[in-house]
């Protein structure tokens, strides 16, 4: 059963490639077989039949589906995802412009999620069935049950009432006159250029949406961390440490926490799916203008190339996140390294 971690990761990588292929076939077929002519939709009802036919030919819609798919994949591998019918620009250009905003939002949410959820999980496990545990339980239950749109809107409302002047929509104040930086991540660009006012302003804008986006994950991860800590407390090696008189604090932070962070990390990987989904809602509420907003527009306007690209990129994002999680777990979990050590 035990594999070299590199082999394990390569196997996972292979599975992920298969998953991407299956996903692309699925969304591609779905986007082509649905009723409605994409060419007609792109040109609108005013266009003549000749114009529509010409565009059909140009888009390759007269070819068999398999040919269209292979053509699409071939181009996609060279970074050409077709033209967006709505923005009239290459989809890749649109993605490059919108993706950093979402990645920045999601990354900060994930960091925030761990900063809150892991300590709360550890504390509630330590004070099991006491007041702090019940408070933590209510917190995690709230995170899991509250609709993200309701939480986001409520945060906005509270900020508007309680923190006058705190930005509640957008990514940055346009009055700062920031032209945009090389990475597209506003905080990072601001820091790199030494414009700390820009970085601070972007961080202020980011705070509410990131908090709103992380709420569901905080609920899940707190729960998992708590139950994982409690489960591992009963393990023999922990009992051994306790009977050797190792201080409780050392046991918790040096041994238990490391062991108990495997389950939350795994859940985190799976949580990325709902994180990306919720980004659609959060970006809409906070007028964030990222990848998810772009996706929502594309879907609403039946912009086929853009929809296909958005679904594929969302899938890719999920896969990369899970790959990183796998690597992290194999670093943390010595049981996965056994072969290497021998």
């Amino acid at each position: 059963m035990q594999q070299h971690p590199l082999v394990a990761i390569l196997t996972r990588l292979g599975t992920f490639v298969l998953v991407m292929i299956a996903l692309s076939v699925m969304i591609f077929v779905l986007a082509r077989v649905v009723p409605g002519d994409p060419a007609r939709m792109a040109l609108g009802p005013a266009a003549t039949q000749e114009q529509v036919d010409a565009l059909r030919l140009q888009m390759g819609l007269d070819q068999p589906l398999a040919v269209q798919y292979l053509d699409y994949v071939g181009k996609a591998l060279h970074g050409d995802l077709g033209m967006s019918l709505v923005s009239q620009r290459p989809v890749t250009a649109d993605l490059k412009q919108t993706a950093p905003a979402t990645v920045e939002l999601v990354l900060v949410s994930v960091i925030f999620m761990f900063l809150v959820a892991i300590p709360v999980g550890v504390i509630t496990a330590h004070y099991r069935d006491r007041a702090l545990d019940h408070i933590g339980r209510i917190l995690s239950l709230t995170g899991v049950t509250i609709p993200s749109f309701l939480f986001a809107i409520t945060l906005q409302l509270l900020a508007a009432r309680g923190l006058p002047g705190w930005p509640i929509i957008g990514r940055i104040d346009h009055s700062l006159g920031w032209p945009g930086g090389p990475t597209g991540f506003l905080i990072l660009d601001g820091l790199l250029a030494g414009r700390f006012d820009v970085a601070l302003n972007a961080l202020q804008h980011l705070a509410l949406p990131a908090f709103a986006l992380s709420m569901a994950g905080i609920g899940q991860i707190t729960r998992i961390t708590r139950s994982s800590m409690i489960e591992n407390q009963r393990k023999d090696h922990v009992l051994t440490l306790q009977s050797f008189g190792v201080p409780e604090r050392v046991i918790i932070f040096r041994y238990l926490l490391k062991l108990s962070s495997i389950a939350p990390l795994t859940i985190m990987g799976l949580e990325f799916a709902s994180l990306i989904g919720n980004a659609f809602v959060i970006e809409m509420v906070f007028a964030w203008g990222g990848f998810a907003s772009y996706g929502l527009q594309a879907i609403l306007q039946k912009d086929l190339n853009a929809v296909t690209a958005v679904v594929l990129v969302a899938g890719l994002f999920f896969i990369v996140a899970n790959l990183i999680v796998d690597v992290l777990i194999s670093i943390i979990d010595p049981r996965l390294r056994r072969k290497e050590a021998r």
Partner: protein
Amino acid sequence: MADMKMLDSSDRGLSTGYMMWYRFSRNPAAVAGSLILLSVVILAVFAPWLTPYPKHVGAVVDFRARHLPPDLAHWFGTDKAGRDIFSRTIFGLRVSLLLVIGVLGISVPVGTVLGLIAGYFGGWVERIVSGLTNVMLAMPPLVMALAVSNLLEPTLMNAMIAITLLWWTWHARLIYSVSKSIASEDYIEAARLAGAGPLHILFREILPNCVSVISVKTTLDAAFVILFGATLSFLGFGVKPPTPDLGSMVADGRQFMPDFWWEVLCPGAAVLYVTLGFNLLGDGLRDMFDVES
């Protein structure tokens, strides 16, 4: 792995039903959750008789009563067309519950049967089911549901189909892992040696051991489906107006946000109330059956 034993040996002598009821009644989360859900079902089923303004679910316009704050006549206030938000919220619960019944009514049986078969027989069924679930797991469900429902037509029915298409895989995966671990148990081998057919083994030997897992998963999933449906309709993929639907009511109210807050918070709180009910019940059931998540 989950402990499949539902009763301790010390429980013998008392009827199973009584023991279940005893454990259930001693679990505050489960009781609170079921009370919430009971109230939701009663409100939804008898909405026409329980709401003060049942006519307001239609295209009623009363401009003198626009944007009234909550008071005794309108508990949740009124919306931009002067309609009673409380009445519309109660009717909106119907849509949410319908969504749960529609999605889980199809995806749970399908997922369970496929999971059982894949876990017990293995082979090509196992490969297909685990392959499909791997693909589905890589897909943010909301993105997929948005894409599918809009490529067809942005209606609740299509959203429901899209959600169902994804949801069965989660059940199949769970039941698959349980079924696979049970398939190697001695009593399954014994049943096979005694001449039991595959149908008997699948549905009379393995399935009863999955009941606790299925009920916990289904209850927690019901909360997810409701959140999901509300989110979809919030984003504009809901039922056609004027039919009330909690997510689209929140989206409508958002235009009037800081001033007429009740138009957002009241229907939103209704979603929270239902999902809380399902989550409490699910957590309670999990404690009762001693099933790990």
